[in-house]
């Protein structure tokens, strides 16, 4: 789960990392009040779960409460990169001497945590990594041994002497967040040295492992603060993985790999998928029915493709679920069904006997994708 900046900073402060004074605002008026409280000037920062805010107009310095209100209203009205915006963070302006970059991230390849630091902070960190990788210091941290003193010396050694002690303190606390809060990413861009010598986290990107939220209840509670498409919300509540896309063939499959492969094969058949929907393993009849309802609630869908390869999932239950859904709702688009694997023959027989006018049986994945693509094109 990706936290908003202000939530990440709450975590930072709870672990003793200094951040600027900030106030969350949900209206222009609140942003103006916050700016007044911070001394009449502030920085207004859009709160979204994606990066690239600085370049995209999502971080704006303002010199009056009125300007703060204006910018906050614009961000709340226009959203950011097609994401809805429900809040902004209004922060005090600090006298910055220098900007750095630091992060710890789970390194999938190495199976440990990678710590990074560079004295060249700012927005083009990825470009720096590509053009002058030697400018970024890196250490691999064994999860069982934790961050050692020599790691800290290595990373902070790239900073000017006056920043090292403060930065070392931040590093130790970031590493603590990795283990105590099950974070898979903590990134500070920029970490700044102030004119008075303090080292402060001006930004916070924190990602927490979804599989560990059961032991991070206060972070789990933040889940409700993120906007979500109503159809996606309904899918999530029933345990389905659903992502809306912009095509017109509705897709239901089991297993992320097979569903991704189905999107690809539909594209090769000349159509575009309307969504990604993974019913997961062991799908019941009821789950199938809900999936179909979710897909059919999208008006862009002109045809549906159900592609199931049963392992744990039983195809007879899938067939029953499709029929149950069609008894509950009025489907006005064709539904192509391909069943293979556990109890596939039984599933196909159930659909055959029902002889529902909307159901189109297909025997292979390729054939199913072609039929669904053709039907969607014919209806468009």
């Amino acid at each position, binding site marked *: 789960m990706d936290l908003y900046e202000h939530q990440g900073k709450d975590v930072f402060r709870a672990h003793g990392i200094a951040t600027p004074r900030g106030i969350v605002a949900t209206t222009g008026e609140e942003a103006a009040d916050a700016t007044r409280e911070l001394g009449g000037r502030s920085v207004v920062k859009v709160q979204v779960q994606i990066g690239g805010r600085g370049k995209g107009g999502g971080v704006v310095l303002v010199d009056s409460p009125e300007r703060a209100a204006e910018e906050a209203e614009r961000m709340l009205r226009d959203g950011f990169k097609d994401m809805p915006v429900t809040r902004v963070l209004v922060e005090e302006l600090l006298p910055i001497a220098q900007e750095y970059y630091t992060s710890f991230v789970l390194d999938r390849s190495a199976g440990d945590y990678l710590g990074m630091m560079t004295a060249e902070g700012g927005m083009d960190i990825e470009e720096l990594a590509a053009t002058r990788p030697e400018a970024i210091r890196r250490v691999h941290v064994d999860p069982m041994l934790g961050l050692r003193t020599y790691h800290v010396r290595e990373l902070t050694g790239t900073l000017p002497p006056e920043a090292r002690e403060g930065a070392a303190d931040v590093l130790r606390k970031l590493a603590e967040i990795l283990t105590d809060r*099950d974070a898979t*990413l903590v990134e500070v*861009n920029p970490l700044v040295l102030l004119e008075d010598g303090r080292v402060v986290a001006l930004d916070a990107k924190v*990602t927490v492992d979804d599989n560990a939220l059961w032991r991070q209840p206060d972070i789990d509670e933040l889940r409700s603060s993120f906007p979500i498409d109503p159809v996606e919300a309904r899918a999530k509540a029933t345990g389905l993985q659903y992502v809306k896309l912009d095509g017109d063939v509705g897709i239901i499959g089991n297993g992320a790999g*097979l569903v991704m492969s189905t999107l690809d094969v539909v594209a090769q058949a000349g159509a575009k998928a309307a969504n990604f929907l993974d019913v997961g393993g062991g799908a019941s009849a009821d789950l199938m029915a809900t999936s179909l309802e979710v897909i059919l609630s999208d008006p862009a869908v002109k045809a549906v493709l159900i592609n199931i*390869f049963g*392992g744990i999932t039983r195809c007879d239950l899938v067939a029953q679920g499709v029929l149950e859904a069609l008894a509950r709702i009025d489907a006005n688009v064709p539904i192509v069904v391909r069943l293979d*694997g556990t109890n596939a023959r039984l599933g196909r027989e159930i659909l055959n006997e029902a002889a529902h006018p909307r159901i189109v049986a297909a025997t*292979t*994945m390729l054939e199913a994708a072609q039929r669904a693509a053709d039907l969607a094109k014919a209806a468009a």
Partner: protein
Amino acid sequence: MSVLIGAGTRLVVQGITGREGTFHTLRNRDYGTQVVAGVTPGKAAADVEGIPVFDTVVDAIRETGANTSMIFVPPRFAAEAILEAADAGIALVVCITEGIPVRDMANVHSYLKGVPTTLVGPNCPGVISPGAANVGIIPGEICAQGRVGLVSRSGTLVYQIVHELTQEGLGQSTCVGMGGDPVHGIGFIESLAAFQADDGTDLVVMVGEIGGDDEERAAAFIAEHVTKPVVGYIAGFEAPPGKRMGHAGAIVTGSKGTAAAKAEALEAAGVRVGRTPTQVAELVKATLG
């Protein structure tokens, strides 16, 4: 011949008394796997359809000579179960459990560096050597005995591609479902090395998907070390680009993790990449002649 599991496999199932654990244990036994023991703390002295249940893996090994473990323990306790098996001296651990916190797996990964245990998974469908042994949840009836090795990150794509191979009359030596978790046991490289060394394997199919850089690193390994033909498949050309928070992930891998970049890396290493599961089977057939 096969890799990882075969006629010599003596299986202990950790979490044997759970619903899924019991169901798949019995399916594996019906397939012909020697299932010699189960472990569920506090349920020793019980048995599951004639399979003795022990309190600890150490007891199971002492009493039955188990050398391979399959784990169906719930996610909160699964990392502990892997450590227990490794510590007891189990040579191969296959962890089916989905949803283990990644920090727990990072600790396991660190521990396993110092011991000779091989881990497959977690969050994987397991391993099958058709005709010899099945450890996991891959449906045995879609496989056929033969000389194609297969390794995949995705579970259901193992099924789809094995099915396509079998339909074309192309049997398999071993199919490895390595699982898709960020920190996991053996990957493409270890599997490719095992298949390269296996007399019973003539060709390897590797099935990847978007995200991470496992496929890119496998491509580099193939160029250096694999002389047997490799056919690839990558899922996710049409998948929506995942939203990304920070920069750190991209700096680590230096890769965008896209399907196109992965396919390109594999092709540059001499791997023929099929664009559909059906095409993968056709390429295998054409390559083997």
